[in-house]
């Protein structure tokens, strides 16, 4: 009887693991998610019916309020706003860890040293996750105060000081036997951890948000695992470790896609490059085009590849793009989509946006998969993307994005770039692709541009 509760938690943990495993195939992914939810339900019910839990009023209020708010958020969020949503949820998980560790400190007094260290870590990581995620949320929502990366003078020194302060607080917390001192230390950890969270994320620019979101995802897991050590619960430790690991993997993938190390993203400021005169020289031979000319080019195309960027989603052009690909497919062309890992604002974001527009996932090709075949592509249509198709990443070793893996659209026979103007992308550098002899620029708003092309192709 005694072992039943931990065994049920074990079953819940296995459901999490199997759920994540089953989620790795698009066909079975829905089932995987449901298995995870089932594991969570089991864990919650087990906890409620555990003999150690008595006061049900608070529990009922909390469960109902959280369920209602969570349901409303999930039902109403737009797919373009998914990064903000996930960022916010990460933060709430971190916030919960801060509060659980605090109330454990208040509720019980005979803590061992290792539990107290876990309490401190839970508070620290939770606070960093909570405030870091909120700043990331504000940046993704493009609140004007957070739009530009801010950093205080000698920011890294201040951060190092805050980390040192936290270590000190945790040490006092762990070895003090006075509960008043312990509580004071914990509050100190929560407050300095909050500042640390803000200071860590605030200097990071909007283009690096995929890395931040992944990292915060990892932190929220680690905070949960730390809480697991506080209350000696394996389900929290296992689930937290799984999420921590998955966040780290996604962080690595995002960093690799930008050819930057994690520390460079966190502490470095991306160097701007290219002087104004330089830009005029590069863009001297840019040729622009019209929907009718594009329709003529597409008329004979056997293989067409779309290269979407976040700009496409901002212009709400994904449905128009799918319309165009349907028209082209009806005329016998093979249409694919080349997705750069950082095309959206979180890992896999572009795939979700295209899936929402009913584009089948087997047409979405990863960068590494499509790059070797691009020289047999007749027309590449770049829409709302810039830095991820900039060939200077490959050719100019002095470029700020040198070495970043890109989609080699310059190898296609014809490249059509749909863009409002020649303004630079996130990296703030000119793009020699726009001036290449096989490139045609079409200056227009993404959605209207694609609709005009659809009309012109239909009129052929």
């Amino acid at each position, binding site marked *: 009887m005694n072992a039943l509760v931990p065994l049920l938690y074990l079953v819940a943990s296995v459901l999490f693991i199997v759920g994540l495993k089953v989620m790795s195939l698009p066909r079975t992914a829905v089932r995987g998610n449901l298995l995870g939810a089932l594991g969570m339900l089991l864990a919650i019910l087990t906890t409620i019916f555990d003999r150690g839990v008595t006061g049900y009023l608070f529990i009922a209020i909390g469960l109902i309020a959280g369920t209602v708010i969570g349901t409303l958020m999930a039902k109403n969020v737009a797919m373009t706003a998914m990064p903000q949503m*996930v960022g916010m949820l990460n933060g709430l998980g971190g916030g919960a860890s801060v509060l659980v560790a605090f109330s454990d400190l208040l509720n019980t007094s005979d803590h061992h040293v290792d539990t107290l260290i876990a309490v401190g870590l839970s508070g620290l990581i939770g606070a960093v996750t909570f405030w870091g995620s909120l700043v990331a949320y504000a940046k993704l929502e493009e609140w004007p105060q957070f739009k530009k990366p801010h950093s205080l003078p000698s920011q890294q020194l201040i951060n190092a000081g805050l980390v040192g302060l936290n270590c000190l607080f945790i040490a006092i917390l762990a070895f003090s036997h006075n509960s008043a001192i312990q509580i004071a230390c914990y509050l100190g950890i929560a407050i300095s951890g909050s500042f640390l969270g803000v200071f860590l994320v605030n200097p990071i620019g909007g283009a690096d948000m995929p890395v931040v979101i992944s990292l915060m995802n990892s932190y929220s897991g680690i905070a949960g695992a730390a809480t697991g050590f506080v209350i000696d619960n394996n389900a929290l430790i296992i689930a937290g470790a799984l999420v921590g690991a998955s966040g780290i993997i996604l962080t690595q993938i995002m960093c690799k896609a930008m050819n930057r190390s994690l520390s460079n993203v966190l502490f470095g400021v991306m160097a701007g490059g290219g002087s104004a005169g330089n830009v005029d020289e590069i863009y001297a031979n840019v040729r622009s085009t019209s929907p009718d000319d594009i329709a003529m080019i597409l008329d004979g195309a056997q293989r067409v590849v779309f290269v979407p960027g976040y700009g496409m989603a901002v212009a709400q052009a994904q449905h128009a793009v799918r319309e165009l690909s349907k028209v082209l497919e009806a005329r016998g062309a093979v249409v694919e989509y080349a997705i750069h890992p950082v095309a959206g604002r979180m890992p896999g974001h572009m795939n979700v946006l295209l899936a929402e527009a009913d584009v089948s996932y087997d047409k979405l090709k990863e960068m590494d998969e499509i790059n070797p075949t691009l020289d047999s592509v007749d027309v590449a249509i770049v829409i709302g993307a810039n830095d991820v198709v900039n060939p200077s990443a490959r050719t100019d070793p002095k470029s700020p994005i040198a070495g970043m893996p890109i989609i080699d659209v310059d190898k296609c026979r014809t490249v059509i770039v749909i863009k409002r103007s020649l303004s630079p992308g996130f990296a703030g550098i000119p793009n020699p692709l726009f001036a290449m002899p096989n490139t045609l620029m079409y200056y227009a708003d993404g959605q209207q541009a694609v609709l005009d092309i659809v009309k012109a192709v239909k009129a052929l």
Partner: protein
Amino acid sequence: MKSLIVVMALSIATLVGLVCMRVQATQSGKNQESAVSQSTISSDSNSELAQGAPANPQTSSDSGRSLVLVASLTVFVLSVFVGFEIIAKVPPTLHTPLMSGSNAISGITVVGAIIAAGYKETGIGSFFGMVAIVLAMINVVGGFLVTHRMLLMFKKR
């Protein structure tokens, strides 16, 4: 196959953890209730808190305690490896739902929140527990539902 082995290793480690907890429970015979659930602490230790008296951990259970810690660390480290094994194989198409889904799983903190809110001596700690339940539950429910919404879009074909 490799991940199956890791999952088995994880299960064994968890069983070891359970055994260790038994050892600890029998060693600290003084505190009967802590044997029921590792999260339950007897009420007399709470009165110690009220008096602001220092806590005095039973030295007899210290060896059992360190075994529990080692078992927990074992579970943690092995779970990290299981996580690496599983997640590394997820295709980029599914990275966003994977993240929101794993995000929902990290809402497991709700278990700790329920324990904190349902603590027998209702007080400020229980109130914080309730707030924690709200936050964690938004994370859990919002995360799983939004993941479901996204995955249905991928399933259509």
